[in-house]
């Protein structure tokens, strides 16, 4: 299967281990990711906050590049990018005057044909959970994980058209297929503070703190994410949250693709587990996985 790949700025930067593990896992599953040549930033959250048309144009240019590659579908591993691409696509499809203006800007017909999916969606809807289960050579038995979807992977439901926005299950099912044990917990689809880690750190300490506390109460040994913003907020601000709440968490924040790779037999180093601040390496090595 050939799918256009929109890594987004984070996967070329802070989330390089997400990029690496995503590519490894896709190759393993026979998905040929073709990175969009000359893609541009999706603009989240700055563009849509200050200039709606700009945000749709940024997305439309990327969707048009996919069309030029003769590919039908683009996948975005980052929930923020997914949300912006999907929103741009929705606007082009439902707002004719916007579509016309944007077509003039990108000098191409509005790319309404291109389908947008997030990476988790690609796995559960295109590959299928049972096909993934068959590839598991190292079941992640006994690992208690909090599947964290965050706010934008499933929202708004009207636009995202993926899973359920309040009690999503796809990541839980995927983790189960890997042999792990997803916990039942409260904050799987609440917000961690998104793009405010640098500009309004207090917001992330408040919202991210609620997420960490909920995962702790549910008995999770790690939180599994599908978004670089969630990973960055919960990992890099965890120390500050611990100080703020007077509570040790020590919770690794892991990309789901890293766990897929681990279950498929790749090494911790290949999957970039060493790149995270609250490292899962000890937890995983204790179990003889490495």
């Amino acid at each position, binding site marked *: 299967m050939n799918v256009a790949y929109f890594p987004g700025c984070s996967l070329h930067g802070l989330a390089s281990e997400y990029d690496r593990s995503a590519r490894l896992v896709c190759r393993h599953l026979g998905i040929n990711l073709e990175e969009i040549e000359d893609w541009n930033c999706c603009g989240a959250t700055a563009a849509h906050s200050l*200039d709606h048309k700009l945000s749709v*144009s940024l997305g439309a240019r990327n969707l048009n590049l996919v069309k030029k590659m003769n590919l039908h579908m683009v996948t975005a591993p980052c929930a923020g990018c997914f949300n912006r691409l999907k929103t741009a696509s929705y606007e082009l499809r439902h707002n004719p005057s916007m579509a016309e203006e944007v077509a003039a800007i990108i000098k191409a017909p509005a790319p309404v044909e291109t389908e947008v999916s997030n990476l988790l969606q690609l796995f559960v809807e295109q590959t299928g959970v049972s096909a993934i289960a068959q590839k598991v050579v190292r079941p992640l038995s006994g690992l208690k994980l909090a599947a964290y979807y965050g706010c934008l992977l499933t929202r708004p439901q009207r636009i995202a058209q993926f899973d359920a926005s309040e009690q999503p299950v796809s990541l839980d099912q995927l983790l189960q297929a890997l042999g792990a044990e997803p916990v039942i917990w409260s904050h799987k689809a609440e*917000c961690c503070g998104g793009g405010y880690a640098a500009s309004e750190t207090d917001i992330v300490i408040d919202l991210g703190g609620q997420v960490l506390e909920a995962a702790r109460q549910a008995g999770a040994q790690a939180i599994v994410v599908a978004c670089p913003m969630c990973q960055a907020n919960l990992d890099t601000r965890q120390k500050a949250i611990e100080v703020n709440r007077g509570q040790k968490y020590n919770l690794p924040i892991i990309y789901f693709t890293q766990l897929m790779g681990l279950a498929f037999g790749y090494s911790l180093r290949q999957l970039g587990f060493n790149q995270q601040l609250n490292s899962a390496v000890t937890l995983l090595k204790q179990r003889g996985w490495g």
Partner: protein
Amino acid sequence: MPDASGIETQAFFKTIKLDAIDDSLPQEIKTACGVDVETCLECGKCSGGCSNVRIFDITPRQVVKLIKTGQEKPLLAMDALWACVSCQLCGDRCPAGIDIARIMDYLREKAYQKGIKATRYQVQLFHELMLGFIKKTGRVAEGQLIIRFNLKTGRYFKDADLGRRLFLKGKIKPFSSKIKNREDLRRIFQESIEREEDQ
């Protein structure tokens, strides 16, 4: 301003002459955002679940109500515009399907265009710096963005230790990638509102 009970009182309490209000603001929102505020049931489900409502001066429900009553001034000046994290929980739960996040984007854009100073200066600055990066290179180099942001806000040592740790983990790249098609970028930004070139 907090009163004796510690409860924040709202600054815009004054008599609104309802019969003197036309429906231009609701119409404007309908045209721009495709949202009919008359469908609002005023139930408050948006506000109850809002990620940041604890630090909002005007709740999402009140935002919709103020649109109904044509109160543009408090809407463009409100702190909530800059405290909103765009998580979309409000609109996703709205029983009338009102896209409140889109309304917030629209109001923020309008306030910005009118030059109304953001109450959370650093949020607006962060957005501006980010757009500056995109305008120049088509992409964002996160590490550089954060360093520039901290320098601009005079917080020279904020996150310095964190930055060093992330650099050692191979998470911050010294160079940023650029896109080749500059012409596309120029056109995309030409159409967008003029703002000061980022230095």
